[in-house]
Each structure stands twice: as C-alpha cells, then as structure tokens.
C-alpha cells in the first residue's frame, strides 16, 4: 500500500513513536497482548492469542498460534521473519519462545518489560492473564514487568487519515447492508422473516460489498424485534430466531469490517400498524439522536453531553426510557471499550470528564428502552470529532421507517 492510498497507515511511524515513549518510560521491550494493540501495530486481525514484541529500535515481531501465523504474516506489513507461530513443542510454546526472544533483545538479558494489564468489559480485550504474567516473570529472571498500556492508548487516541478512511469505508458498507435489509422488509417482505434471517441477509450484502466480517463479539449483527427492543437498560441483542410481526418495533444493528476499520450502525423500524404511542416513542428517540449529533464536538465531555441530553429527555417526559450513556470507545479491531485514557474515577471505565479533542473517533451509542410497552430503539454510528461538530460516518438516513 502506498502513501497515496486512502487507507495507508504509517505503521513503521507508529512503531517509532511507541519506541520513543518506551525510551521516555525507561522500557526496554514492549510485550503487547491486547487485540487493539495487535491491530494497531501489525495491521492484521489476530483472532487467536497473540503477542507483539517491540524492541527499543527496529521492527516488531508478532507471535501467534502456529495455525494462523503464515496468514498473519501475509496480511501484516511485517515480513515472514518477523512473525512467529507458537505451538506445544519444545522451545516453541508461547512463554518459552517469547521469553527467549525477549532475552536476546536485552543486553545482559535483563531489563524492564512493558506489559498490558488491566480489566475490561470487552471480553476479547487480551490483557496479560495472571497465569501468563507469572510464567513470563519466571521465564525472565532479572527483568521487571511493568504495566505500560497507556503508551498505546495515548498514541492511538487521535486517529490518522488512513484509519478514519477505513472506518468511512466500513460505514459505507454498513449502509449497503441497511439498504438490503430495508429492501427485503418493505412491501410486506418482513412476513416470515426472523431476526437471524435479517442478520444473515445484512451480512451477505455487506460481505458482497467487501466486509471481512460482522466483527462485533455481541453475536455479529444484532437484531431485536418486539419486546426484545425494549429490554431494561439493554443495549446488546444477539439475533434470535424470533419471527418479525406486525405492530412491533424492529432494531437492526449491523457491523462491517474493512482493513480493521469498523462499521457499526443501527437503524430502526416500526412494522405496521403503528400506534400513536409507538410514534411518540419513536419521535422522542429521533429528536434526542439529532440533538446529540448536534452537540458532539471538541471540548465537551461525556458527562456534559449526558447532562444535556438527559435534561432534554426529562423536559420531554421520556428520561425514564433513556439508557444514560451516549457513546463508547472505538478504534481498530479490538479497541471497543473505554474512551480516552484510563484516568477516570473508576479504573478501566470511561472518564466522564474526558475532554474530546478533534480527531478522536467514538461510537455515538444511544439506547431507548420502554420494557413495559415492549418498545425500544438503538442508535449507533462512528463519529469523528471535529473542532466545531461531529461527523457521522454512516450516512443511512436517520429515520424510523414504517414498514
């Protein structure tokens, strides 16, 4: 990929910046294990347990399960000699292989190793496990293992043009998926369809358009119909076998991946006949989404935004139905948890006082849920923060369509 390619990312430049931060923090070798770190440094999807070892200077080396190592090498910007496969063989299990590799990088085989430790609500986060920590500690005598993930978190906060373009393309693909769902549902097409069927047809349309997979660990494409749209405080709905019925809401939250850039957009429907009360809920939701998108810009914080939006919902009499969170973090595949750095009052949760800066990317994520009436709606869309506004990357029309 050349620098003129819209999806170009300067990975050697990223590594140099990490190495400069390592030097500052007196870290000799960085041992990354989080999925977000692997994506951000390797430009390859690593679905198996994987590690990246970043030396004080020069090219990093990736380690992954042997069955996938050649594919990772093929996808990554690294050459084959910088990707190792590990397996249960003498000298080739992940602890011994990586420890030996690290020792060879250290003068006197001693030094400070940056590791990634912490916690996350996102299951595939990939922090070093307690067992791995103990094994690496034992295998690296004379080395100090220090938690250093902030280096990556800080450097990956502001997105470069290539990353944003990858997200933009993934969002374009998601919009193709939404159009396919709309076309399939309209004119009575919904009859006999199930949530899993809708998830599948969206996936097919997106894959035809180039999506690599429906990347979300929440079951790929999340589809909810009827009462499932309004589960209390709910914002996670893996598709079920439930059949779409007249008179019910339908929530379509689909995901596409393009070169580790992630598309994530929800669109909502009401299946006729629709009651006035259902439209009241729907219009509440549309209005608060529009206001939220108008409000996001550099300089505000998640708590500023939540206060304003909940105030609006309260004035309009629907605050009981709003889940009081309006965003989640996003980055290249594997980065789907907190926004900003781990510097809030609750460790490893978004700092509500995080001040957005231009160039940050987040998922505007809003959930409206009225369980007693079995109705709810969801909005998700990657948005780029600009100095005076936000830019939603998915441009499928913001409506609730009556089918």
């Amino acid at each position, binding site marked *: 990929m050349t620098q003129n390619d819209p999806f170009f990312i300067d990975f050697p430049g990223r590594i140099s910046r990490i190495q400069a931060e390592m030097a500052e923090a007196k870290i000799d070798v960085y041992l990354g294990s989080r999925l977000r770190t692997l994506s951000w440094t390797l430009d390859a999807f690593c679905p198996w347990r994987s590690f990246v070892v970043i030396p004080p200077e020069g090219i990093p080396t990736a380690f992954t399960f042997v069955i996938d190592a*050649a594919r990772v090498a093929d996808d990554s910007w690294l050459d084959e000699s910088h990707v190792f496969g590990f397996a249960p063989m003498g*000298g080739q299990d992940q602890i*011994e292989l990586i420890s*030996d590799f690290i020792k060879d990088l250290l003068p006197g085989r001693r030094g400070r190793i940056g590791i990634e430790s912490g916690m996350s609500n996102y299951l595939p986060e990939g922090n070093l496990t307690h067992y791995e920590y103990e094994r690496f500690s034992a295998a690296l005598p004379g080395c100090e293992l220090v938690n250093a993930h902030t280096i990556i978190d800080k450097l990956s906060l502001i997105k470069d043009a290539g990353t944003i373009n990858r997200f933009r393309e993934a969002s374009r693909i998601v919009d193709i998926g939404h159009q396919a769902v709309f076309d399939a549902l309209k004119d009575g097409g919904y009859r006999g369809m199930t949530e899993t069927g809708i998830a599948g047809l969206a996936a097919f349309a997106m894959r035809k358009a180039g999506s690599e997979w429906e990347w979300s660990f929440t079951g790929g494409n999340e589809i909810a119909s009827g009462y499932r749209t309004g589960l209390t405080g709910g914002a996670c709905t893996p598709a079920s076998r439930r059949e779409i019925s007249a008179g019910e809401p339908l929530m379509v939250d689909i995901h596409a991946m393009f070169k580790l850039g992630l598309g994530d957009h929800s669109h909502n429907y009401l299946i006729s006949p629709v009651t006035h009360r259902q439209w009241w809920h729907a219009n509440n939701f549309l209005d608060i989404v529009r206001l939220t998108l108008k409000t996001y810009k550099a300089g505000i914080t998640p708590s500023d935004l939540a206060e304003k939006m909940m105030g609006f919902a309260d004035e309009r009499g629907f605050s009981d139905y709003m889940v009081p969170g309006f965003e989640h973090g996003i980055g290249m595949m594997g980065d789907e948890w907190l926004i900003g750095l781990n510097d809030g009052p609750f460790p490893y949760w978004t700092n509500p006082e995080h001040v957005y800066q231009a160039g940050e990317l987040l998922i505007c994520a809003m959930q409206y849920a009225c369980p007693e009436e079995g109705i709810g709606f969801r909005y998700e869309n990657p948005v780029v923060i600009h100095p005076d506004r936000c830019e939603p990357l998915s441009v499928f029309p913001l409506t609730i369509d009556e089918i």
Partner: protein
Amino acid sequence: MTEQIRYLTPGWRDEAEMRLKSELSPERMNFITSSMSNIYLDCPDGKDKYLFFRFEKGLFADLILGEGEPPDAEFRITGQYETFARISKAELGSQRALMTGKLKLKGNMIKALKLASIADRLNKVLSTIPAVY
C-alpha cells in the same frame, strides 16, 4: 558384515556427509537455503557436542561436528544425546520428540514447518548409517 562406526565421531560425520550428498539431491531438498545446529547434551564422554548443517540451494555446503558453541544457524535444536540417538536409530520420530518436549527448537516455526519433511528425509538417511551408540 558392515563395519559399525561410533555415533558422532569424525568417521560418522564423514559417512553422514557422503550419504547425504549421494542420497539427497537438491530436488529432494527442495533447493532450500538454510542452516541447522543439533546440540547434543550429555554425550557419553560427558561433553556437549553439535552437528551443524548448512544447505545452499539444496546442496550440502557444510556438515560440521564440534564441541562448545555451534556456528549461528537459522534453527537450533537442543536435546539429550540419548534423544538424538534414538531418532537416528529410528526408534523415535523427531516430531514426537519436539511435541513431548524432548527436543527444543529455536527458530521461526513458520519456516520450520516448510522444512519438516526435509528434516525427516535427512534423519532417515542418517538412520541408515551402521553406528554404535
């Protein structure tokens, strides 16, 4: 009756080189360019020894038997003398020895996988040398 040669002696090395060169053509070696050091721990004389193989485009360029630190090689396989001896006698497969931790491989496994069948061919030739262990 064929004369038996003591394993890992200069005579055994010469016989190994002769057999490897005559029985494994560059085609059979997939024209590889690589190198490998087998490190034999606790040999019967109490020392550690190495056997260093180097191939250039499938041709045997070096087969060096020595003591102490071996030359740099793309792959380094370390194990007890007894383990290597059992492999050379065809009593133990090299894959099994690796999988059970009896041998330790240092090197890139992706490349090693490409060479696994070649290593088997090589071991098969070495196992035909009438040797005393």
